[in-house]
């Protein structure tokens, strides 16, 4: 039982990170109609930038985080303008979204090499701003890193939920997502909406990346962006489209992965934890193709 609770909490922490990454995909997907995996590049660059400003330059953690977020945002917007807009504007052919995705995959691969070129291939440590102290409640001991990840993620998710559901810009974003032309007629500027979406998505990705970078033992390394692939089943499990769906999908994914890795006997071999979410995704597709929380039309984006 103690084991179970410990695994569950670290599963939820991992799931919150998946949820944030999935969220950053979904926000951009809904506001611009384009799926851009380059958010994974933000997840990769953010911890390195935080490392550069926090550890190398000696700035406070919060300020380093802010600078990293601003740099990532500028980079994302710049790439959106000079690379992704021209492809999307060409319009008309079947492979448009595929072209965007492939360019993003290409740049993601290149950015892994770029990170190694700048910071080297050795894992780096961020001096752990969350602290590695264990908190014991009865016989259950939890790392404060897991708890702070869950806390930060919950605050962020609440903020995003408020932004999307309760503010004018959030309503505009949802309007653009459901019917681009009708939204334009209502006087909504799609450029503003996609800009806000990029900013939100980048914040989510920066936070996810930074929290991943402080992972116990792992540290910052050049394969952090792999999480952007591991988070993708969350879109199918959650049903895609909605903030709630993808975050819930992400959390489920994290719990599933951690429990599977924790309880699998040694004979199941290496990598069982990362294997289970994909199998769960395929089983779900057979049983309930619209996902746990989704309606079927959203999936045809």
């Amino acid at each position, binding site marked *: 039982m103690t084991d179970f609770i410990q695994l569950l909490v670290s599963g939820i922490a991992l799931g919150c990170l998946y949820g944030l990454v999935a969220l950053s995909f979904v926000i951009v997907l809904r506001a611009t109609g384009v799926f851009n995996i380059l958010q994974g590049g933000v997840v990769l660059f953010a911890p390195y930038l935080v490392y550069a400003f926090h550890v190398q330059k000696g700035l406070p953690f919060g300020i380093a985080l802010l600078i990293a977020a601003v740099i990532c945002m500028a980079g994302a917007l710049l790439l959106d303008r000079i690379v992704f807009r021209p492809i999307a504007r060409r319009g008309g052919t079947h492979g448009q979204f595929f072209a965007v995705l492939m360019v993003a*995959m290409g740049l993601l691969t290149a950015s892994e090499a770029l990170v190694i070129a700048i910071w080297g291939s050795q894992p780096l440590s961020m001096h752990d701003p969350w602290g590695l102290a264990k908190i014991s409640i009865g016989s259950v001991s939890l790392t404060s890193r897991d708890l702070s990840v869950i806390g930060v993620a919950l605050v962020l998710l609440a903020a995003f939920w408020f932004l999307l559901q309760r503010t004018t810009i959030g309503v505009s974003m949802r309007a653009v997502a459901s019917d681009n032309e009708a939204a334009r007629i209502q006087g909504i500027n799609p450029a503003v909406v996609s800009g806000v979406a990029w900013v939100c998505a980048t914040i989510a990705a920066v936070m996810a990346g930074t929290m991943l970078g402080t992972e116990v033992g792992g540290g910052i390394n050049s394969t952090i962006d792999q999480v952007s692939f591991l988070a993708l089943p969350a*879109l199918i499990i959650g049903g895609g489209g909605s903030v709630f769906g993808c975050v819930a999908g992400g959390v489920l994914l994290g719990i599933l992965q951690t429990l599977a890795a924790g309880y699998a006997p040694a004979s199941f071999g290496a*990598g069982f934890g990362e294997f289970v979410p994909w199998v769960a995704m395929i089983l779900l597709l057979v049983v309930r193709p619209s996902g746990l929380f989704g309606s079927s039309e959203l999936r045809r984006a």
Partner: protein
Amino acid sequence: MDTAITRVEVDHGEATSASYDRLIRREMRLTKSWWSRAAIVAYIVLAIGLPLELTNSLWLSLLTSGAVYGIGALGINVLNGYAGHASLGHAFFVSVGAFVAIQTGSTWGWPLPLWLIAAAVVGGALGVLLVPLAMRLRGIYEIILTLGLVYIGTYIFTNWRGLTGGSTGVPAQLKMNLGFIDFSQMIIGNEMYTYEQGVLMLSLLLVGLCVLLVHNVMRSRTGRAIVASRDGALAAEVVGASPIRTRLTTYSLSSGLAALCGAMLAAQLRYVNENQFNLQLSVQFIVIMIVGGAATTWGPVIGALAVSALPIYITTYASSIPFVKQPTDGTSGFGIMPGQLSLVAYGLLLAVFLVLQPSGLVGLAKSGVVLGRRAVRLGRPRTATEG
């Protein structure tokens, strides 16, 4: 009055349908003209002659890689270029092909045609299994599903040690004889040829066969239905293109070709490790298709030759490329690791081609021909009818 009009329309209709029939029959022929028959003969002569003349091991491995990866790229071209479906799972089918070939051709010692067919059939069958799932998904969700295959394949093949040797890999001693020809040590007259030359000959013949197969499937009724579904799914369904049948053909052909590529890869490398079948490999096939030219007949093969040559050129000229870490630079300072250069190059190639040259090298060559013709025409004095 009414009847006259009706009769004229009927006549007209019959005339066009008859001429269309003739047209379609002509289109459907395996070879359309004496020219294409001559080209096929010329290709076979080249595919047999070239490996016998070539002894430089760099060229041999480059051309073999080009042909082998070309087979796999033809598969992704069917799925993405012609059918418009997206997949990141190509590496999974390649690995299936490689391990089926090793099991049948090396462990069980089946002859050459049998292990090739076994690999293609198992790969194609797995592709068919994917259809019911893929039917439910589109766009990014289809990509996520196929991405899952790579991760599932990695887990299965890492832990299925009896078949794949786990993380240490498994040697592949495939039987290479086809009737009286043994491709692993061909003897013609008094000359004896190496394994590499044999594999090159085999893969050139095979890639030619696959190009012909894909080209003709795409000209067939099903092939046209596949392209029609890509350009307008609803319209295609209305005129009778069954979505299930087009998907079945697309997926089985595509994954079958991928598995064939895997089998030939095992034959070429004679040693297979499951960790070479990663997401990077899937992306590499897409790079090949896009660089060559999507939805073109020869694009995948031309792209494969260009892209396979890339790592070799990069390692040869690493010392003169800017921003590259030289052995003398030590560990500090900015510099891209030479080992990662080809990854960067793939990424940049994808971006550059998709943004600037979406029709690939084949498209570039075609526009070159058009420009050349225009230049010739400009040189001539204009006649009154030319604008």
